Structure formats: C-alpha cells, structure tokens
C-alpha cells in the first residue's frame, strides 16, 4: 500500500569499519568520561554538563527520592527545571504538581527555571543553554532534541535523574553511530517532519543503543527549528540520541539565545572523516513527498496520497516537535484567506511563550484565528493526553505531534494521524486528510 518501493527515493547502505577516527557522539562521551577515546559497546560513566527535568518527571518524583537519600543537588547551576506537562493547571491535581515544582525550585535554586514559558526542549533551545560538545541529560524521552546543537543529549527516567542530581554522573553504553544523509532540495510543502515520518518507516523504531547523526546539504540548509524536528524524533527511531554537527546556523542560534560559544566549536565538535559508522544511509530530499503516519505508531507512515480524503474531527498543531514559530508560520501560510471546514476543530498550542509572542507580533496568530483556529495555552497540551484538546471515543485527529500510540491523546479508541504542520492545516481546511501541496501552489 505504501509507495516507497517505486524508484522515487535513492537509498544507499554501506558499512565501513575503520578504527582510526571517532564520531561526534564518541568524542563527546570520551571527553565526559575522561578518556582519550571510546568505542561502541563500552560501558562508561560520564560527568553531566546539564540536567533538565520537567513538572511530570522532575521534582514531583525525584524530590521524595532526594529526601529519602538525605542528599542535595550536586551542582544546581547545571540544572534546568521547566513546567510544561501540567501547564497551565486544569484541575487540583495538576495545580498541586505545579505548586510542588515551584516549592522544589525555591528550595534547590536550579540554574534556570522556566515556569509555563513553553515546552522543555524548546525553551532549552531558545535559551542558549545547549552548546557543541556538552554532555546533557533530560528527564523526558524527547531530550535528544538538544542534539541539534552538536551536543549529546538523551532521555532518562525519574529515578535515574535523581541519581544524576545526587552524583552529577550517569552510565552509558557507547552507542554505535548511524549516519543519515539527505541531499538535494526539499520540494515546497515538504519539511523536516516529513523526513522523520519517512525515517520512522524506513529505519524502524528499534534503534536502541545507537546514535543517529544527520547530515548532508539538505540538513545544512534547514533552519535551526527544523533541525530540532530531526533530533526530536530520533526518540521515535528508538535511538539513544540524534545529533547534527554544528555550523554557522548552530552558533547563531546559541548566540541569539544569549549563550556564549566560540567559533572554534564548529571545527572541534564534528565526526572525523575516517570515523566508523555502523551504517550510512543516503536519501534524496528532492523526491520526498508529504508523509502521514496512520494510527497507532509513527512507523505506519507513508505518502499522504494513501490516506487522502479520510474524514477528521480535529486537527491539532502542538508539541515540541510541531508548534514552534516555524511550524506556526507553515500553518498560517496555508490558512491565509481560508477557513477551517465546518464540523472540524483546529487547535493550536504554541510550543513556547516566545513563539506565541513572536507569532502575535508578526500577524501569524491573527491569520490562524481568522481562519477559525482555536488558540490554546503553550505547553505539552493534548500531545500526551495531559492537557486541553484530548479526544473522545471514536474521534479522529490529524496532529503535528510526534507520537500516535493508542490512547495517547485521549480515549483508547480514538485515532491519531501524524503529519507536518502544512498537512495538518490543509486537512483542517479540507475537513479530511489532505495533501498541502495543491493549497500552497494555489496560494502562490
């Protein structure tokens, strides 16, 4: 049924087995573990440069563990706390979780606290916290997002994050690196989200103990916010982390966020030309088309044509992966001068307060709301079923989020399709799953 077997995409798989060079992730793990070099499969202990936790997996769960251990935070300056999963509070339980988080922050004084300022992965990226070569951990599975800055960042559970808070260290098995290159120019209406849905199907979601390194001229051409999509959804590939070697775009993004970084980081923190990869994959971006993942897994992705016309109840633009300023711009470009179909609701939950602010000042929010979109607060929202916009039994949603596991966005018998912000916006206008390209061509 899916159409990847037709000769539209070029895939080259080659195995190299040199022993001289190191990949970027190996260089970072070597530095963090105090070794000259490391090899895949070695189990090492690394010193953590930055630890991020949020309201769901953070103080609420690690606070009691620190109390039980009678221990404090090893280095509060290296800790970032974010409220996003239960922000804003919608009932007494979520309000209590928020309150507990604020009290923990007041007591432990982490280096940064973002209270309802956006989704953790995006506020970290916006705040200049992440720099090439750093070894970072996060109490959330989408922590690989940070790898777009040329650092190591991976996700861990709450007890393990408690361990980091106490010791400042964590064990890792040095992952194999897979190199994923995209060459050529993405067609209009085809974006990083389509690349990742395609990869979920092509590479599968079972890449534990591997790091994915993205490269190629199509990746180099992506703005920072689109690069975050590639590394964010390394989580869906099941990988330890996703990474992109730093360049001028990376340095500009760090400096825009108030971070300090040397130009030299670009030369220092990249894979050696003779580095050893477990596999290399090469894809032609020019031949990629809009992708949609069917329920109940991102690996059920295929070209939008396969599901065009399927009726929807809701279109959702939200989450770290799918409601950044860049994503809101995509939705607005498609929705300008159009209306959401009757009987369909389009919800937009911007990924950060900064994105909301900028979208308000540049007219994006006006375009969205004039088209009939309902604006929701910034935060994780309905993506994980925690916030506003969840689904009833039997309802169908197309969403710009990153996961569509059964019951994730509400009732266990609701259905979630995943697509790019363009595809979600086009579907909202059509009232059914739709290819965004004709809409964009018509508008142009």
């Amino acid at each position: 049924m899916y159409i990847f077997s037709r000769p539209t995409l070029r895939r080259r798989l080659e195995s190299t087995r040199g022993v001289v060079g190191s990949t970027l992730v190996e260089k970072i793990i070597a530095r963090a573990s105090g070794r000259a070099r490391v090899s895949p499969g070695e189990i090492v202990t690394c010193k953590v440069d930055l630890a991020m936790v949020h309201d769901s997996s953070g103080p609420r769960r690690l606070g009691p563990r620190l109390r039980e251990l009678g221990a404090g935070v090893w280095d509060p300056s290296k800790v970032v706390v974010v409220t996003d999963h239960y922000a804003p509070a919608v009932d007494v339980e979520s309000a209590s979780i928020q309150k507990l988080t604020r009290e923990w922050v007041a007591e432990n004084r982490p280096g940064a606290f973002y209270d309802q300022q956006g989704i953790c992965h995006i506020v970290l990226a916006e705040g200049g916290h992440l720099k090439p070569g750093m070894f970072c951990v996060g109490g959330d599975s989408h922590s690989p997002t940070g790898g777009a800055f040329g650092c190591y960042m991976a996700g861990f559970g709450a007890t393990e994050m408690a361990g980091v808070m106490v010791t400042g260290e964590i064990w890792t098995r040095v992952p194999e690196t897979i190199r994923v290159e995209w060459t050529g120019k993405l067609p209009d209406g085809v974006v990083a989200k389509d690349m990742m849905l395609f990869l979920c199907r092509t590479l599968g979601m079972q890449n534990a103990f591997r790091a994915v390194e993205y490269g190629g001229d199509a990746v180099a051409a992506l703005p920072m916010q689109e690069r975050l999509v590639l590394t964010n959804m390394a989580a869906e590939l099941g990988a330890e982390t996703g990474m992109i070697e730093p360049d001028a775009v990376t340095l500009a993004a760090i400096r825009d966020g108030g971070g300090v970084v040397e130009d030299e980081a670009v030369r220092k923190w990249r894979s050696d030309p003779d580095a050893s990869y477990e596999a290399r994959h090469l894809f032609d971006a020019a031949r990629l088309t809009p992708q949609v993942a069917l329920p109940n897994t991102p690996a059920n992705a295929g070209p939008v044509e396969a599901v065009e016309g399927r009726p929807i109840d809701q279109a959702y633009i939200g989450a770290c992966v799918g409601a950044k300023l860049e994503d809101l711009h995509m939705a607005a470009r498609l929705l300008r001068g159009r209306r959401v179909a009757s009987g369909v609701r389009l919800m937009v939950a911007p990924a950060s307060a900064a994105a909301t602010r900028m979208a308000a000042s540049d007219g994006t929010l006006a375009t969205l709301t004039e088209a009939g979109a309902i604006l929701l607060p910034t935060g994780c929202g309905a993506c994980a079923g925690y916030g506003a916009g969840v689904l009833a039994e039997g309802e169908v949603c197309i969403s710009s989020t990153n996961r569509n596991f059964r019951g994730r966005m509400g009732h266990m018998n609701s259905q979630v399709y995943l697509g790019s912000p363009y595809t979600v916006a086009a579907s909202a206008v059509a009232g059914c799953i739709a290819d965004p390209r004709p809409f964009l061509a018509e508008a142009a």
Partner: protein
Amino acid sequence: MTGGIGGRAWKFGDNVDTDVLSPGIYMKLPPEELAKHCLEAVDPAFAASVRLGDVVVGGENFGMGSSREQAPQALKILGVGAVLAKSFARIFYRNAFNLGLPALFFPQADEISAGDRIEVDLAAGQVRNLTTRKAYAVEPIPQHLLDMILAGGLMPHLKSILARERGA
C-alpha cells in the same frame, strides 16, 4: 531479591508502548491507581488478574516511547517478577533495572504461551518453562546492572554510594 522469580506468563506482541503501560490520562494519579490501568488497552483483564511473580513476555522493542518510569513501576506494583522480551526500548530497559524489575533479552519469546508456568533464575542466567519443560540460557545481564537489581534498584545502590562517601 535472590534471583528466584516464578509465575504465569502474560503474552504481548511487538512494540508494547509506554502509553498502554501507563496511559497519559491517568498520569496525574498516584502510581498505585495508575497501575490499575496498566495494559488495559491491549488486555483489559491484566491488571486485575496478574499475580505476584508472574512474568510478562513481549516481542520486539518492549516499552517504546516515553521516559515515564511509571511504565515499569506499574508492572512492579502489580507484582510482575520479570519482563522477558525479544528486545527493549532503551529508557524502559534502564528504568526497569533502576526500579528493581529485571528485564531480560529473550529471543525465544514465541515459544512461551499465555498461562505457561515460568521460572526465572537471575543468578544462574536461566529461564525455565515448566509447562513445556524447556530451559533457556539467557544473555547475561551486564554486571553493574545485575549488582543493582540484586541490591533492589538504583535507590539502594545510591544509598550505598552515599554511605561510603559519608564514611570516608
């Protein structure tokens, strides 16, 4: 925990995800309440019927998805003694050991049927199916994880580290 685990097998397929193990809509609840909904989307009888020492048997990529450790925690609260699967998602794998729930790579998962009587001997690295009278050697658990699981998980391990530092 001395390594002796035994009970009935509960069979699941590939890609059992963290949303079916610990559904998001119940994540605000205390773990004991959340656990009542563990796996209900794929087996509504599981949470009410599973007994102490029972073994969950999965296919590939068991525990894919979120970092929420309520996923292995729910299994542990319900009394599950071990998870055997062809492969695991990395965060679930780590979380399981951190909470003292053994997770064993078990490529022969298809040879176990629902309801089979299973024994797991961690120290000997052996799984026995008493129903089919087959014994399997399992891939050894890395030493640092075996130490942790025998200690009861990461918290007891951290306590011993801190006790050493404070004693020094």
